[in-house]
């Protein structure tokens, strides 16, 4: 009996070995620059700027929560083999240092896409909160810079510059694509401004963690969340939830937003307590397998968000 089990284990191990070997990246097509990006927005920017001259892949597997991610040895090998690695910023991806240290490749260009972007701290995000604000939010800096589209444009430019550095021959190509993309971002920005100017409700109640600081600041919205801090780990206290419930009732908020990829339990609890309805609001750290297959892009996701915001906040 135990011999059978032993044989079975060996068979399983052999199968696993074969499938994982089979899953190795197809050799990158000759001539294309291989780029690995950490989060989804960067992935989308890079593939739009680089077009068919680049081979972009996402480090974060689809569906995995960004803040919980830790690079595996295979990831480090992949990065080493690539031409470029783009990340958001040191606070968003604290594990970048680990990777930088273990990189031996001389051809790899590591790009901090947040260069030139001003980070805002929690204190700035909650100017009219009471003294307890700092206590509650810890006074840290918000790393979710891409949700302010002017920042996104800066990031696009940084990436474009990096691509030109690596591949100066196609400079014009990259510049044109970047400009096009930034135009689309500007268009997105105006849409947001227009729509969100005329809303009956100004408060967005978010069942996820606090990622929308930059967006809130830019469009004059008020975001409240049950979570303290910027990562989804910290558990909301019952008092936080109760206060949120009270606020929702007080402000007459009709819709509660839930975060992508995470079980929407907190949002559901709030909804059940207040009879508010649920709507998704994606911060685009990462996308689901299904969305990736459908070809979702950063701008399309943000447009969807706008639609949901319009409905939930009762705008024009």
């Amino acid at each position: 009996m135990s011999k059978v089990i032993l044989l079975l284990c060996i068979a399983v191990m052999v199968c696993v070995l074969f499938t994982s070997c089979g899953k190795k990246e197809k050799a990158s097509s000759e001539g294309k620059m291989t780029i690995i990006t950490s989060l989804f927005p960067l992935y989308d920017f890079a593939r739009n700027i680089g077009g068919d001259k680049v081979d972009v892949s996402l480090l974060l597997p689809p569906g995995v929560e960004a803040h919980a991610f830790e690079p595996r040895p295979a990831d480090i090998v992949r990065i080493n083999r690539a031409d470029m690695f783009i990340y958001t910023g040191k606070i968003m991806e604290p594990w970048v240092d680990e990777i930088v240290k273990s990189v031996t490749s001389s051809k790899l260009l590591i790009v901090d896409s947040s260069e030139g972007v001003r980070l805002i701290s929690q204190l700035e995000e909650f100017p009219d909160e009471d003294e307890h604000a700092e206590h509650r939010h810890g006074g840290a800096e918000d790393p979710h810079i891409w949700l302010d589209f002017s920042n996104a444009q800066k990031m696009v430019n940084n990436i474009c510059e990096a691509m030109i550095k690596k591949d100066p021959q196609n400079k014009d190509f990259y510049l044109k694509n970047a400009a096009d993309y930034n135009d689309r971002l500007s268009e997105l920005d105006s849409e947001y401004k227009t729509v969100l100017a005329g809303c009956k409700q100004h408060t967005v109640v978010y069942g996820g963690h606090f990622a929308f600081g930059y967006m809130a600041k830019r469009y004059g919205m008020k975001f409240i969340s049950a979570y303290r801090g910027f990562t989804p780990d910290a558990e909301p206290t019952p008092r936080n939830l109760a206060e949120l419930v009270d606020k929702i009732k007080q402000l007459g908020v009709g819709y509660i937003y839930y975060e992508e990829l995470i079980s929407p339990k907190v949002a559901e609890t709030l909804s059940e307590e207040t009879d508010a309805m649920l709507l998704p609001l994606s911060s685009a750290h990462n996308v689901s397998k299904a969305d990736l297959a459908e070809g979702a892009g950063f701008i399309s996701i943000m447009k969807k968000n706008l639609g949901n915001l319009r409905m939930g906040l009762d705008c024009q």
Partner: protein
Amino acid sequence: MFELFQYHFIQKALIAGCFIAVLCSTLGVFLVLKRLSLIGDGLAHVTFGSVAVGLLLHSQPIYTAVPLVALSSLGILKLTERARLYGDTAIGIVSSLGIASGVILVSISGGYNVDLFSYLFGSILSISNTEVITSIVLSVIVMLMVLLFYNELASITFDEEMAKMSGIKTRRINEILVVLTALTVVLAMKVVGIMLVSALLILPASAALQTAKSFKATIITAGAIAVFSVISGIWISFAANLPSGGTIIIINFIIFMLMFGYSKNVLRAKPEEPH
């Protein structure tokens, strides 16, 4: 002072929490005495692996989790019988296997539509109506089983050989105990999270054992401690603006220390009686 009770989410936390508290603390008495205390943690790791299987097969994670975790609990039992290992080692082996399988499966499948972890880890403050019912039904079923097999379980836990010699089917009863534990871990974990389930399996029983006066009293005391910790924990966490799960566990620990101190200084302080 009592305004917190008006919120539905608090009410649900109290109801589901209390049922799960009694359930876990009762099973916990047997598990602790059988040196299987960490089975809660161990099976949680297996649940991670089995949820990965479920998502791979595109089925509801709970449908794969329950049978796989139940099988793993039987595996732990088998290891203690055949491989001559104590419970803690057997748990460690199965637990490592569970989490490793999960990690590999996640990797092979190339990603999912949602984050695995968030589906595993419930929180006592975000319990749905369905989950309240699940907690009640689960508790009733398990407690009923424990009641029906109370004497057999007690006999096996005290002295398994003697139990066998009185014609008790020891293997069957042990299997029932670990499978009930597996069921509890999977279902209760989704409701209140693994941190709380694991703690409720170990702490109330350990505290009750400090000042036990009889076996029956031990089980009842463990249940009472667990329920008290849930109710007071939710209440204090609200008043002091702290996370509820952690508060409940700290209260459990405080009670344990109090009972330990009491037993050491008051109960055992008597001079030895002549034989």
